[in-house]
């Protein structure tokens, strides 16, 4: 029976797919053992922190099954509690806060070449994939901790600071899945917390500009999807234009009216005036709504319009495009990333133009990306083949299956 359990555990460890894939050179690893060995070797320089993290996760997972009920409850509560609810003191003491990269690297392995993912990685990148999410670091850590001795025999593991040792049973498949799921939840919560805390940017170490392959959509920073939103009523500080003035505005067509063509709808007329584009009802010749536009109300030196919704940009975009030496808050509106002084609310920087296109792992690639456009520095690594296409958009390179046009992975260009 024990042999059966061990065999099951070994198979589960081999089958467990990492949350974030790791590419190493050209060629697709066909053998799971070869892939794991390659990953371990290539990622060695980055694994000090990941192993520490994996240690903590594994010990926590073991604690769940071994501690007293009270401890179990406390541990579970701590894990389920989103980190943004923790006290500031806890955050400061958290190893994640002190070194975010240490936290992410177990999941975010560095991409080292144009390798195709193994079958498990591919399956993970597709919708509906429910394969166990265990990292190679994690499995390597299992061995390091001596849970399984040479020849697959269970070893001894020390617990706590005392000399007490006890024999640990090899984890079964269910336990492995639970552990992997817990780790995924933890990392996902951390990512969500980070994306919601742009003001903490100054406290984070400057990220490295190097690629990291992400195959789980939960780890891809998403821009706010509210686009081109007009605001009902009249702009602040401008008041509503008198009816006669609206009629003049409607009648005075300017050659550039069509340049905001993404706003055009046939049931309305669009006119620019004093920093805003107005939507005018042609029948009544009254203003229906307005939107501040780039270069108009949303120009450097202007205060952010007081009643225009603020969409905080996820940290990834602030880090990728922003000026790391400036204490700006980065806001996103209508495909533009703005650096804003959080104290004065004044726009200080136009940081980036973005498409805002919807790239979701497992979904079809958006229309309008028919041309290879990977940044020069990454062209020797990510180039189109009959197995994979690569397209760049808004700070990410995406890997696409040429046959299905489904997005297989996102390669973030910061680590």
């Amino acid at each position, binding site marked *: 029976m024990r042999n059966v359990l061990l065999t099951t555990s070994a198979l589960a460890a081999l089958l467990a797919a990492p949350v974030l894939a790791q590419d190493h050179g*050209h060629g697709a690893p066909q053998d799971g053992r070869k892939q794991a060995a390659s990953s371990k070797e290539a990622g060695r320089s980055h694994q000090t922190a990941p192993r520490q993290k994996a240690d903590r996760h594994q010990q926590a997972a073991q604690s769940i099954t071994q501690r007293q009920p009270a401890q179990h409850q406390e541990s579970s509560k701590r894990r389920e509690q989103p980190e943004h609810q923790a006290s500031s003191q806890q955050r400061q003491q958290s190893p994640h806060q002190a070194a975010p990269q240490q936290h992410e690297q177990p999941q975010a392995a560095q991409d080292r070449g*144009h390798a195709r993912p193994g079958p498990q990685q591919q399956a993970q990148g597709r919708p509906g994939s429910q394969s166990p999410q265990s990292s190679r670091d994690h499995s390597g850590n299992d061995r390091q901790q001596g849970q399984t001795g040479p020849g697959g025999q269970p070893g001894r593991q020390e617990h706590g600071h005392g000399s007490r040792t006890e024999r640990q049973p090899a984890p079964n498949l269910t336990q492995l899945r639970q552990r992997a799921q817990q780790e995924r939840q933890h990392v996902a919560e951390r990512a969500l917390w980070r994306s919601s805390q742009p003001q903490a940017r100054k406290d984070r170490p400057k990220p490295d500009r190097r690629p990291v392959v992400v195959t789980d959509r939960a780890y891809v920073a998403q821009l706010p999807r509210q686009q*081109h939103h007009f605001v009902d009523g009249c702009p602040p500080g401008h008041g509503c234009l008198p009816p006669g003035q609206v009629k003049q505005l409607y*009648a*005075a*067509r*300017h*050659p*550039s*009216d*069509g*340049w*905001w*063509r*993404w706003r055009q709808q046939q049931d309305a007329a669009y006119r*620019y005036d004093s*920093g805003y584009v107005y939507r005018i009802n042609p029948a009544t010749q009254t203003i229906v709504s307005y939107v501040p*536009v*780039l*270069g*108009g109300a949303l*120009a*450097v030196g202007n205060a952010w319009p007081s009643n225009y919704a603020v969409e905080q940009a996820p940290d990834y975009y602030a880090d*990728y*495009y922003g000026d790391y030496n400036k204490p700006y808050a980065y806001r996103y509106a209508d*495909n533009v990333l703005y650096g804003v002084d959080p104290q004065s609310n004044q726009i200080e*920087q*136009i*940081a*980036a*133009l*973005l*498409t*805002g*296109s919807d790239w979701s792992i497992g979904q079809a690639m*958006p*229309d*309008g*990306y*028919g*041309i*290879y*456009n*990977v*940044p*020069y520095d990454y*062209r*020797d690594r990510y*180039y*189109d*083949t*009959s*197995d994979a*296409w690569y*397209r*760049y*958009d*808004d700070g990410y390179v995406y890997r696409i299956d*040429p*046959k299905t046009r489904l997005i297989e992975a996102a390669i973030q260009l910061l680590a």
Partner: protein
Amino acid sequence: MKKLSIFALGMPLAALALAGCSGGKGTANEQAAVADAGNATMVTPSDKTLADMFGGDDLDTMGDVVKTAGLDTVLDGVGPYTVFAPTDDAFNALGTDRVDAMKQDDMKAQDAALVQAHIVPGFITAADIANAIDAGNGSARMTTMSGGTLTFTKSGDTIQVASDDGSQATLTGDEALGSNGAIHPVSALLVKSTAAS
């Protein structure tokens, strides 16, 4: 503007064509050919940014419009972007008065909208466009930063581009590759000017 010759055709786009033909993983020989193509030598881009590469030759007006719009800092940033920049002649076709007006501060918003409509994400060379057209049964499309789409076709060796409002232009062929993107001069504006009243 520093002009760089078109680098080796081949690589990603040959791969695209191959993908279009095989539709699958391809044979070992095909994959080897793709890998070889992927390693093809490419002309190293200038260390200048997009913002630096405007001006001189025939892109002075576009450079002025970019600055007026306040987007020179964006084109000086990390990018990368590919700009389809109307030549001075293309702007002059609007009339001198209108070109002069576009350089005034009260046209910042209009200029920003114009610039957004001429930029697509990423680093795209003329060879990339040509190969994508070949692989795409005669056309290739790219999304612009204004939410529109540019459609590229070929007429002989000339690459043509059309926006979804019906504006059309040709690429003059004098691409400039920089540290944060590429500039392709085009013969006309890719936004349509409605008649003023």
